[in-house]
């Protein structure tokens, strides 16, 4: 047996990360304490161990400052040490037992999750953080990733690689925004209706870009990755051109994005309410679509056939399934989803369109899809991983955090690489993905 195995590498990685975290937090808090003492701050605790990170859960829908429903005080250093010692112990166990596969994935997930958590409470040492807001942000930011991952999944499950999701999102955002502006102007309507029309157009635009991808890769059998790259380059040029030649000069009464849509009753539950039931429409749609897609893929005729054509197109062809036609439409459906993700940027978060405003989320979505092993629920898990890293880095910057923000911003990318490198177990893509079908 080889000495260095996956389990041992992962265990060693965990121990190193935990040790580094412990030392860093300890050193950082000591410095902080010294500084506070030097400045004679009244807030300085008696020792490093005296720093407390407070997590609080506010009463839903009350202005900031209202007394919270609950406050969880965590001694910063104590909690960090406790978690890190646990992680080190588990890492040592992995090294000693050296399992073939079992437990490795769980350990890596725990390592990532706890690292995020440690960073959070480290950042808020001596301060407090709104837990409900942190979690609801994670859900909100996961919207384009979740939708993008579903888009990728529908394509790849049917055998077409789609790295053009980014471009589809961008074009969707651009045309959706234009549609909302134009319709608002024509009918002189400033309300939500033009914005909803924009969402519809965004979805359709995503579909049209996807149809181009499908055309190039299915009909003309261009390498699917190249075809996706073409979509991305095209999207940048087209949307940039439209923005400078049209959007900026166009005046419209529509100015607001989609409204908040708190679900009556449910949104009043502390913690759960803000996290799940107080969002804007596209976020709900995303959450529902993840569930629906899971059912569609594994329980319906469409799903069965989709899985078949991505795995063994010839088998599907011989029982009369029109492989290329179905692939075409699945790619288009993927485009619809990507277009909806685009609408999130331009019509839900803000009401505006900027060049390159999707900022690479389409690529991250693909990573989330691979992370989730091509299943909708798994892919959404991946999306949550990225969105929590993102939410975390936004959150902790406000606390004058010791670590340069660039390093926190790197975190999701590093995690993706680690995950792709197979530490959680090898992800097996649909067998026929990337291969044009030609009977």
């Amino acid at each position, binding site marked *: 047996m080889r000495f260095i195995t996956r389990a041992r590498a992962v265990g060693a990685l965990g121990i190193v990360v935990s040790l580094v975290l412990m030392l860093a937090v300890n050193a950082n808090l000591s410095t902080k304490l010294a500084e506070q003492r030097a400045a004679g701050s009244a807030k300085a605790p008696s020792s490093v161990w005296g720093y407390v990170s407070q997590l609080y859960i506010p009463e839903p829908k009350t202005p900031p400052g209202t007394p919270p429903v609950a406050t969880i005080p965590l001694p910063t250093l104590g909690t960090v040490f406790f978690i890190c010692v646990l992680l080190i112990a588990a890492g040592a166990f992995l090294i000693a037992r050296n399992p073939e596969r079992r437990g490795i994935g769980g350990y890596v997930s725990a390592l990532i999750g706890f690292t995020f958590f440690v960073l959070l409470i480290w950042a808020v040492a001596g301060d407090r953080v709104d837990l409900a807001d942190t979690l609801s942000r994670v859900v909100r930011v996961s919207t384009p990733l979740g939708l993008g991952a579903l888009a990728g999944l529908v394509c790849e499950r049917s055998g077409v690689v789609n790295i053009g999701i980014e471009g589809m999102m961008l074009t969707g955002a651009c045309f959706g925004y234009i549609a909302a502006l134009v319709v608002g102007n024509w009918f002189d309507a400033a309300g939500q209706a033009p914005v909803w029309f924009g969402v519809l157009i965004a979805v359709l635009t995503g579909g049209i870009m996807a149809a181009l991808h499908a055309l190039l890769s299915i009909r003309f059998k261009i390498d699917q990755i190249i075809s996706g790259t073409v979509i991305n380059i095209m999207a940048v040029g087209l949307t940039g051109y439209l923005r400078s030649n049209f959007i900026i000069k166009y005046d419209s009464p529509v100015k607001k994005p989609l409204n908040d849509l708190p679900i009556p009753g449910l949104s009043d539950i502390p913690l759960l309410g803000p996290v799940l039931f107080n969002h804007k429409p596209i976020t709900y749609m995303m959450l529902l679509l993840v569930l629906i897609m899971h059912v569609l893929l594994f329980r*319906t*005729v469409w799903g*069965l056939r989709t*899985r078949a054509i991505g*795995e063994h197109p010839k*088998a599907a062809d011989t*029982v*009369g*399934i029109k492989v290329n036609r179905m692939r075409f439409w699945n790619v288009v459906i993927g485009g619809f989803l990507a277009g909806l993700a685009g609408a999130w940027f331009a019509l839900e978060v803000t009401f505006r369109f900027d060049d390159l405003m999707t900022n690479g989320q389409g690529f991250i979505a693909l990573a989330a899809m691979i992370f989730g092993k091509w299943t909708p629920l798994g892919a959404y898990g991946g999306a949550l991983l990225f969105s929590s890293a993102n939410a975390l880095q936004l959150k902790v910057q406000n606390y004058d955090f010791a670590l340069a923000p660039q390093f926190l911003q790197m975190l999701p990318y590093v995690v993706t690489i680690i995950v792709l490198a197979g530490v959680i177990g090898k992800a097996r893509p649909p067998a026929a993905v990337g291969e044009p079908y030609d009977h």
Partner: protein
Amino acid sequence: MNNVIPALEVRDITKRFPGVLANDHISFTLLPGEIHAFLGENGAGKSTLMNILYGLYAPDEGQIFINGEAVTIRNPSDAIARGLGMVHQEYALVDTLTVTENIILGTELQKNLLIDRKRAHQEVERLSQEYGLIVPPDSLVGDLPVGVQQRVEILKALYRRVNMLILDEPTAVLTPQEADDLFRVMRELADQGKSIIFITHKLREVLAVADRITVLRRGKVVGSANPHESTERSLAAMMVGREVVLQVEKGPAHPGEVVLEVEGLAALDDRGVQVLNDVSLEVRAGEVLGIAGVQGNGQTELVQAITGLQPASHGKVRLKGQDITALEPRQITAKGVAYIPEDRKGTGLVLDYTIAENMVLSTYYKPPFTQGLTLKEEAISEHADELIETFDVRTPSQLTAAGSLSGGNQQKIIVAREFSRDNVLLIASQPTRGIDVGSIEFIHKSIIAQRDAGVAVLLVSAELDEVLSLADRVAVMYHGSIVATLPAAEATRERVGLLMAGVQQEETTNG
């Protein structure tokens, strides 16, 4: 016979591919309840004809009648709708779906927009009972043995209520016993009024099961025969167009020192499943050890583990006493191991490369092909010309892409390349699969010539006949282990067949 309307009638079907006349005015009839065998060499046009019937190719000329009615079959669904089912040589099954899902794919039952899994399950159970085709409905197809997968394929056709079934080389991956079981099922189906087209190149099987035989050669029907009035020899002559020597001529072996020694070898496949358990064997200089066994019983992994293409999880491989277990393929090759891989196009050749380039695929880095830092084209070119001449590769030029040659000539490139080195061990895996008879003869002779020159030969073949006719000793693999090793004289078809099916006999032990 004239009063029965044929279930299927084909008239003057012609299909051309660029430069090739694949089917040349083929006509035949298929009667209800009949097993009609199509016999022909590889490349005789059988598969093209069947693909036309099944709507995968459009014929250039000719007509098809089903139950007396002229039809055009545009695609497989047309074919299925007209009651025509087909089991391909390579199964059209999705490994990651369950048996039931595979069977209902394309004609699913729905309830409330979802697949009605319960009813589908019942239906599969019912069919499986009715025709004696036992399958586990909820297992993933990828986890099943090939024999069971074939039953799934047949069930798939039956589920679609076909009354004509095309079986394309169905026995290629079966043990003789499994094949006999299949013949029983075919009989049963025929008795229930289903018509079966049975495609094969194995004479014995045709005689065993067919009601009628049509022989194809070079895209044409060269004759029909009645199994009761035919012999293997007469059919073979018809099939090949000349009297063929079915037996390979070879003298007795003169085994020398042990060249290859495998001890307790085990390996995992890419999914991490152990597919090779504790295999031990030895091959001596000047003998052919034939490995018989149904495809997928660990032969591939055994060969890959020996040649260094796949790491062994346990065990040792020694070449002339030297441990080569952990060596890289290149180091193993350099020690005098020649290897004809089973997958000619996927592994043995780079199809886009020229013949000359393919001829130096494993020696390009050595002098005279490389001197200093650069490749020497003159040396590569001379080498190619020489081998083309010696091994009778039929090609317009050494600069022709390997992919545009016939299978037999492609295989000759591999043989030429591998035999042109100084070898102590030759591993030949399925060396004659899918090539023409002329090339088969040539390659068989070359292997025996190597043996006689003192090379140890490990021959792996799914064609039992090939193993029996070439090998001096026969080892049988089953479920990743060698279940028996027999001298050629004791290796009868029946005995080996039983071993291949996993039926243990008293004298056999593991290894």
